[in-house]
């Protein structure tokens, strides 16, 4: 793989300065995304997956401070870029689909207006026919996400549409300018399983068709397994494991990943076979966080885990940030995940 990655995050750290103290939200994150690749970023609430994606887009909370690292996207460091450059990039090169479309869409503007806003900002062709071409492109954007009768839907307000339909509009907005990187933050939370499947099919179908890299943020491992090429597992602001999907499910190496899998109800689980992850997320405001942030919840903890941070080697096909992993890396070809 000599081709450079589309997005290359190196040793990224971020903290929030709050009245209650400094929250060490992210530490030493390495993450890379190739063109056309679909990567799942999986973790429980508080693991830092949304914080990371917001930081990449430069829309972090004001209290956020980048403490280390870089995030190269096509020769530009997103963490060092000016607001102006980022504003040009957002929506055109990097787009985001937010959780809960009902709150992310503007409730008092028609769907068509919202689509035209994006198109006008980023891709307006100069000329007298501006409004006409904008409308045509807005119709096309809705058609791309399989909304029936798109001409009529342009005049609809978000409250007039179902949850699944609103999420399709969000996707249309995000993809209207054909970005090369899409960040989808829990795009199906709150949707029914049947709608979830349709929305995920749509996102990943368009991603494959347009060769668009996708960072898919979710807490649902099984859903990530269905759609992602590779999965990165996060815990308490650390990336703890990164592997091709099949390899990860065939042999999870980080104790947290394994516990996450055994705590999720699946086809074969029984109520007794569920194994909750012991303990809670550590308080990220603590000054004495153990070097491995899972150390206090882990059955395999040794003194070294508390003193020296295990690193996830980005070069490894199946990387794990653990001094005492569960398995050695298994070759992908042997991995058999049902």
């Amino acid at each position, binding site marked *: 793989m000599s081709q450079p990655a589309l997005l290359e995050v190196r040793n990224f750290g971020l903290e929030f300065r709050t009245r209650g103290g400094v929250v060490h939200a992210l530490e030493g994150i390495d993450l890379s995304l190739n063109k056309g690749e679909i990567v799942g970023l999986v973790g429980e609430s508080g693991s830092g997956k949304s914080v990371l994606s917001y930081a990449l887009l430069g829309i972090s909370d004001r209290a956020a401070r980048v403490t280390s690292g870089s995030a190269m996207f096509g020769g530009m460091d997103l963490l060092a870029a000016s607001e102006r450059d980022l504003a040009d990039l957002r929506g055109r090169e990097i787009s985001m689909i937010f959780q809960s479309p009902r709150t992310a869409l503007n409730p008092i503007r028609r769907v068509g207006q919202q689509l035209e806003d994006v198109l006008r900002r980023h891709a307006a062709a100069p000329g007298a026919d501006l409004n006409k071409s904008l409308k045509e492109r807005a119709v096309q954007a809705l058609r791309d996400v399989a909304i029936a009768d798109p001409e009529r839907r342009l005049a609809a307000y978000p409250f007039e549409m179902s949850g699944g339909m609103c999420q399709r509009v969000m996707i249309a907005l995000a993809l209207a300018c054909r970005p090369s990187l899409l960040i989808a933050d829990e795009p199906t939370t709150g949707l029914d399983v049947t709608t979830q499947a349709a929305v995920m099919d749509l996102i990943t179908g368009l991603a494959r068709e347009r060769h668009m890299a996708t960072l898919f943020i979710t807490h*649902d491992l099984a859903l990530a397994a269905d759609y992602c090429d590779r999965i990165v597992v996060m815990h308490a602001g650390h990336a703890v494991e990164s592997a091709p999907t099949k390899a990860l499910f065939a042999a999870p190496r980080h104790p947290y990943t394994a516990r996450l899998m055994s*705590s999720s109800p699946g086809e074969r*689980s029984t109520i007794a076979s569920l194994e909750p992850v012991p303990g809670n997320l550590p308080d990220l405001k603590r000054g004495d966080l153990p070097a491995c942030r899972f150390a206090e919840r882990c059955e395999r903890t040794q003194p070294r885990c508390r003193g020296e941070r295990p690193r996830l080697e980005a070069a490894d096909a199946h990387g794990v940030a653990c001094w005492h992993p569960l398995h050695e890396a298994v070759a992908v070809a042997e991995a058999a995940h049902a």
Partner: protein
Amino acid sequence: MLESRVTDSLVPAWPAARGKSDTAAPMGEALLRVESLHKRFPVTGRRGAMLHAVDDVSLHIGAGESVGLVGESGCGKSTLVRLLARLLDPTEGRIVYAGHELADIRAVRFARTPQRAAIQMVFQDPSDSLNPRFSAREAIREPLRLLAGMSMAEADARVDEVALQVGLPLALLPRFAHQLSGGQKARVGIARALAVKPRLLILDEPTAALDVSVQAVVLQLLAQLRRELGLSYLFVSHDLNVVRLLTDRVAVMYLGKIVEVGPSEAVFRAPRHPYTQALVSAIPGQGPRIKLVGEVSSPIDPPAHVCRFHGRCPQGEDRCAREAPPLLRLGAREVACHFAQ
């Protein structure tokens, strides 16, 4: 850490109650029986138009039985739950709880009937359903004062008892909702429902707001409480894997109607109604999916002779548009489809 220690000691062996089939629960023994229940809402701006939210639903829940209710949003499961919890008045039909007819008691008066304490509800998101100005103790105590008429001292003693039952450390009782974690809030919601010693618990997506690791703890707690207290559950969720784990039987709803009922394990392993088949195939981590095309038909004055699933159904034929299939018994299963084998 305290939380995890408490829960570790609670992890139960799966109760032997599992596999109690619905055929073994004759109608006479049902704790709750619903017959031909209807709820129609008038549609604003359209004179005479009615939205059929719940349409001719019959269902029973045996003593100690756990029944799941699944379906897409808008299918009427929340309306059904609100009818059964007697927060809404039905348009027609009967709701019989332990021999008492409840459908005739107006919802506004139900709070003063003894059955109020017997049927309790655990709401979806404990962050929204707990009063932010109540401490955990006050939240759990309120129904004891209002429904059981206990003195302050009696109620406080019962709060301690039920908090221990649900694994909520007593030291957390003075805390307010915002000072509790998601799992702890879920425990408060469950304790509040259990405080007045109900026999039927209606659980409306009780773990939807929780992370998987916390969800696992709460599911195990619910399974254990049911076994220890001999409770009946009506478990509403759109997470089918969760429903399968916690219920003996499951009812599948589509557009106000029940389309399939049967033993949970069997329904998920071999669904018979085309809608259930599509629903089960959409669970992540399964094999190939059945893709539904078309829109859900309108619940406003639906034609009585057309199958509600017609138009979206992969198997639909002309007959489905002429004759709506009734819910028919097929062994341990009931299915509303002309083509169910």
